[in-house]
């Protein structure tokens, strides 16, 4: 187990190094510099700016300088938002993105489990048909369709919830719904499949024969085994939620890291982009690691050798 963790953490380092390298060179080979403005800066000033951000000199020197700064934990300064360091921007915006992601994650898992179990328990009945019909619909519709429609209905026509923004709990409701909806549906479909299979097994018949309440049979006995495919989807789910939150933050005007991410690409703000990408990838890799560990706790037959 310890050896497994160490190996995976070394792999994390390798992944981050690759990601940083790819991002750095992609943003450098793309046309336009970080200081291109509507009106061109005088060459002398541009030269001074490039010097200040250590973007002069040959490309490989810029790259090694950047990497050695990163190893020392310095994410450097943003070239667009003057006098703000990338670390500072991330500390302000990440909690917002994480809060949105965490609530969507919770909703996706809880909603998906309840829907999936209900559908599997009532296989072939109207409950099953309705749940799976809803699920196929929600899986097919992306956030930028659901989001504006929710705003139109709940904020503008009914006036129940705010249009967007951030701060009070009400502002979290529509973005969370928008972000989580497809994954509630996806988890429900995944779980229904494995649950139907599990419910046909002998130990479930034994549990029923003992006279256990149906709810206990479903949620305590069957779900424990049937949940495994859902657990292995949690890693990709986190990746989807991080990507998806970029759009949701844009629709609902939420001051999270997603907006900065998009702007950093448009502004050729390489250091800010690098910082966001590093944090996103690190989060994902660590999350996948946690999922793998959780997997062994749920199913003792699996051992961590890989």
């Amino acid at each position, binding site marked *: 187990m310890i050896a497994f963790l160490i190996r995976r953490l070394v792999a994390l380092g390798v992944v981050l190094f690759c990601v940083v390298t790819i991002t750095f060179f992609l*943003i450098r080979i*793309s046309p336009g510099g970080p200081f291109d403005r509507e009106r061109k800066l005088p060459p002398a000033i541009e030269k001074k700016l490039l010097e200040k951000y250590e973007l002069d000199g040959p490309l490989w020197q810029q790259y090694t300088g950047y990497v050695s700064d990163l190893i020392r934990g310095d994410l450097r300064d943003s070239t667009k938002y003057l006098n703000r360091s990338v670390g500072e921007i991330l500390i302000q915006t990440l909690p917002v993105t994480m809060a949105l992601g965490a609530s969507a994650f919770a909703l996706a898992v809880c909603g998906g489990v309840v829907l999936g179990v209900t559908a599997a328990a009532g296989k072939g009945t109207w409950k099953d048909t309705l749940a799976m019909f809803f699920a196929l619909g929600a899986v097919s519709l*992306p956030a930028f369709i659901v989001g504006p429609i929710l705003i139109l209905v709940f904020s503008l026509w009914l006036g129940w919830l705010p249009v967007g923004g951030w701060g009070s709990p009400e502002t979290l409701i529509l973005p969370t719904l928008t972000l989580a909806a497809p994954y509630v549906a996806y988890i429900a479909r995944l779980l229904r499949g494995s649950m139907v299979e599990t419910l046909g097994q002998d130990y479930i018949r034994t549990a029923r024969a003992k006279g256990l309440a149906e709810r206990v049979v479903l949620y305590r006995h069957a779900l424990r085994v049937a949940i495994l495919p859902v657990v292995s989807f949690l890693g990709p789910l986190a990746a989807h939620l991080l990507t998806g939150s970029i759009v949701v933050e844009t629709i609902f005007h939420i001051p999270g890291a997603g907006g900065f991410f998009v702007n950093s690409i448009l502004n050729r703000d390489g250091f800010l982009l690098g910082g966001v990408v590093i944090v996103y*990838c690190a989060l994902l890799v660590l999350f996948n690691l946690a999922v793998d560990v959780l997997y062994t706790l749920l199913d003792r037959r699996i051992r961590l050798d890989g």
Partner: protein
Amino acid sequence: MGDGRAWRRFRKNRVAVLSSLVVATIAVVTLTGPFFLPPSYAQPSALSFAPPSLAHPFGTDLNGRDVLHRVLTGGQISLLVGLCGALVSLFIGTAYGLVAGYAGGRLDAAMMRIVDVLYSVPRLIFILICINAFNAKLQGFASEMGWDWLVSSSRIAILIFSLGVIEWLTLARIVRGQTLELKSRAFVTAAVGLGQSHFAILTRHLLPNLTGVILIYLTLTIPAVIIDESFLSFLGLGVQAPMASWGSLLADGAGSLNPIKIRWWLVVFPAVAMAVTLLALNFLGDALRDTLDPKNSAK
């Protein structure tokens, strides 16, 4: 899997027939519709933000362009990108899965490990960066070569290609699984015994047996690529104005939503057009899976 039997089962499946009719109708309407509208509808006019009326059934936008015309032409772009992107991913996924499954052993393990890793990387984020990095390069290259058609649509070409490049993982996994299973069948052993080359076995014996699965995932990948394209266009990084796709129309609509003047038609019509297309394609893919999947037909 006899073709006649599969076709009969497909025709019996009402959801499949209905959704394929819907998809066909949408394709025909988006392709021919703009010809039936007055040519002036494509141009900006003084009639800004007019609500739906008889002359403009879907209303007009900020620049006074007819929203119906915009939704139809936007649909052409969305469908084109979806279809071509899915074909690119189909090609990569099938080739990758075939090779991994047929080679087996260490190469297979290594190739599938790569797929696992790619699954948990936020791929769209890299597409965002790639498109920005390569677009001007391709434009420069195209104008140097004198390919004028490519200069104006270089962004779409890059979109199609890069979306195809990221959407192949699921198909690769499935093709690999099927190949592993088929590989051990007698007809493959016979082909090996007859001394056929690996390439001939892959293309002549294994590939034809995979067409059902590939067809299913083609119908499921098209909506996925349409969603990806709209995601990028929604953020303003995909299709560029004055060209439109459903994603960029939705972005315009969402941007003009405000409590004082509710211009619902700018959101509702592109959203409905896109939702119906995506739903029909997904229902079709699901129904095809029920009728064509060899796993189901065994039962």
